[in-house]
């Protein structure tokens, strides 16, 4: 095995182990306490909170905040997803429409200004 191949193989191994370890930790240390009220409390509210975090962090990153767009290039497609999903509650439809809208704006097919 060449040095470069050895590095790549160990790299993949190290990355895989580190990723698995972080996912394993709560099960290894807290497995017996899954009935605890605190675990129930976190289990009930964490998922919604984490989803909101992912949106709050990634949506602004996908937008251009300079004049004259002011983030509308990502906020408009996001609003489309929200409205469509509240109206039809069809995950595929909401995502597809939002993504096509965003791509059209980013590629200049739709001009906001």
């Amino acid at each position: 095995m060449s040095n470069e191949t050895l590095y790549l193989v160990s790299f993949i191994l190290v990355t895989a182990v580190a990723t698995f370890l972080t996912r394993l930790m709560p099960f290894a240390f807290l497995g017996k306490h899954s009935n605890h009220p605190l675990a129930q409390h976190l289990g009930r509210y964490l998922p919604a909170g984490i989803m909101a975090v992912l949106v709050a962090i990634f949506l602004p990153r996908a937008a251009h905040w300079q004049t004259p767009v002011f983030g509308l290039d990502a906020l408009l497609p996001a609003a489309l997803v929200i409205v469509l999903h509240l109206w039809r509650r069809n995950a595929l439809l909401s995502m597809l429409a939002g993504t096509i809208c965003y791509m059209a704006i980013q590629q200049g097919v739709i001009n906001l200004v």
Partner: protein
Amino acid sequence: MSEKNGLIALKVSLPVFFGYLPLGASFGVLFSTQLDYAWWIAPLMAVTIFAGSGQLLAVSLLVSFTGLTQVFIAMLLLNARHVFYGLSLLEAFKDAGWRKFYLIFGLTDETYSLLTSRARSEDKGREQQIDFLITLFNHAYWILGCGIGAWLGKNLTFDATGIEFALIALFIVLCIEQYKVLQSSFPIWVGAAAGLLSLLFFPESQQLLIAMLLICAVLFWQYPANKHRYKRRLIKESADEQ
């Protein structure tokens, strides 16, 4: 029965197919345009690592021949949010036997979202089989996406600018689904505030982790006021069983 489980898992996981294909493909394209390795190393990483942001970071670490200790620490920190994911699934994965190993391995952002948002019946064994299939399908979509992207990156070019929005759209949809399940928007406002705060005041690499720590802090803080509800529910459940 098992065929029906497969159909349920396929339907639940389909949105992730449309999220993972472009996201996996963007990792694949990045991998094969930045590095000189064979294109099939990208899907191989999808098989063994199965982490979106982790694999994207891996490309830049590979480019600069980073030392393995540093790689290990960087991956632990980047994936630290997964520690919180398990918390809400402790009960669901309990006594899952051999499946539990794979369920934990495959607990990505998207798998986590699907498993915590979907409706569950009383039949725990069956629900764990469905959880397992959803994880397996997601893993397969991810491998496929990474493979296609890496192959395309080596062989042709097309304008896919903006396709990564599919993942943000997925998170928005899952947010709304969580709201419908909980009938409460409180955790969504906490999450949005935590996300925006860390976005404004912390470097990009730490934003996710800090926002998640903030949510946990808020949930711990308002736990004493809600404690009685869970205890009462537990007592009621055990009374029902008798």
